[in-house]
């Protein structure tokens, strides 16, 4: 993928805060610090990757990862942006809801199921589970099979 502009931009501005994990014909994966998350996402958007396909998260036991997928509408090119969140007690990250309207629901889903707070989100509340539900089901310490009812957990 010929995206030297993005590479240069990252090297120039965020030398220590972002690294390129892998690069193939179609995909470029960037691991970035959470401080520059919004900034880099905005830059990616301005580069022409205007389709935010997905925001999701994983629980890597020692940390959380937030993973965004950006696509171009014209070419089969994709940037994967990964953000590591070290703080397990109070994980927090900027919200992209100001850049893409679709980020609203994606982030609410992540918040609901993984328990990551999005700073600056206009309407951060549970989306799939109900209000008042305890716990975040997709975390690895949340049991998938248990004798208890799911609402008795947490």
């Amino acid at each position, binding site marked *: 993928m010929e995206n030297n502009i993005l590479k240069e931009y990252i090297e120039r501005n965020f030398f220590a805060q972002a690294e390129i994990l892998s690069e193939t014909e179609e995909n470029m994966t960037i691991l970035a610090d959470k401080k520059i998350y919004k900034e880099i996402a905005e830059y990616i958007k301005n580069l022409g990757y205007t389709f935010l396909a997905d925001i999701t998260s994983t629980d890597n036991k020692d940390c959380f990862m937030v993973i965004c*997928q950006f696509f171009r509408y014209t070419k089969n090119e994709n940037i994967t942006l990964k953000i590591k969140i070290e703080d397990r007690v109070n994980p927090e990250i900027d919200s992209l809801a100001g850049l893409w*309207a679709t980020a609203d629901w994606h982030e609410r889903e992540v918040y609901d199921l993984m328990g990551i707070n999005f700073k600056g989100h206009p309407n951060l509340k549970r989306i799939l589970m109900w209000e008042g539900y305890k716990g975040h089901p997709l975390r690895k310490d949340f049991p998938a099979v248990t004798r208890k009812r799911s609402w008795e957990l947490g």
Partner: protein
Amino acid sequence: MRTQTYKINLGPQHPSTHGVLHVVLEIDGETIVGSETNIGYLHRGIEKLAENKKYPQVIPYTDRLDYLAGMSNNLLYVQTVEKMLGTEVPERASYIRVIIAELMRIANHMVGIGIYIMDLGAVTGVFYPFIQREHILDLFSKLCGSRMTFNYMRIGGVAVDIDEDFIRGTEIFLDQLPKMLHEYHTLVDENEIFLSRTKNIGKISKSQAESFGLTGPNLRASGLGYDLRKVAPYEVYDRFDFNIPVAYNGDCFDRYIVRMQEVEESIKIIRQAMAQLPQGEIKAKLPRIIKPEAGDCYHQAENPKGILGCYLVSDGTPKPYRVHFRRPSFNNISIFDEVAIGHKIADFIAIMASFDFVLGEVDA
């Protein structure tokens, strides 16, 4: 005189929310001034359940996502696992997958347009397309023994080979389908009431559609011809000659007409695929226990309702560490709150129906 707005609950039990969608509408007379969409009534935790299953055991769960297009969901999931494993799928299997996926697309669009007309009040409109869908489901149930939850795709290929019966049945089906489409066009397209209910209703501009991550026919009705079958061809889609129908108004009528035209393109694809269908294996050789190397992978494909994506994380064990689905309906309906404002309640029903969403997919 003092007037005030009031709130009504559209759903979770309501005849035209297609399941259990809940929309709180704030209305002034019959005009909507505020709207809040609540989802989650059908949340089954498929992503969490998948973490405790082996890779092939996740396939049946994907049937339950968009239960009107089970085959396409199967396909996307096995493709993602294949991408992680780096497996090459035999050519015949690829062709079969395309044929099946396109038949599924026709079946899905038949439900989509049928229910759309029904929600506008013309109950008869639902029966003509459903008869066509029934033909497809008959073919599928002969092929894999199931009508809705197929579990047909396998990692590295497909479960069973298609036989002469299936091919002949598909040909007969494709021969009579254009007649029905024509009949439907004449019944619906020029109906004055239908036009007044759909033209310029629920308009979505191109930039709105981009921002809300709309995909599938809903995006293409807003003037953006983004279809993964053309932009990032998977399986053998690059070998066929077909068009991507695009409409430019972004209203309810365009969303309907794009679906109708897509069915015609699907017929073209299936005909070509059947003509080119090669002989050979239908399944790649794979180890008994599927253990992808540690790592992650995102893959997406053009489902009937939009782009279904799957993000898969492996830690080297036979069970996936994390499975996430990017469900098209989930993104598509997030625009409701914005589009609804200023329309009448009846228009909102028309908008909802024109989006052709499935709650199984929205709530995962």
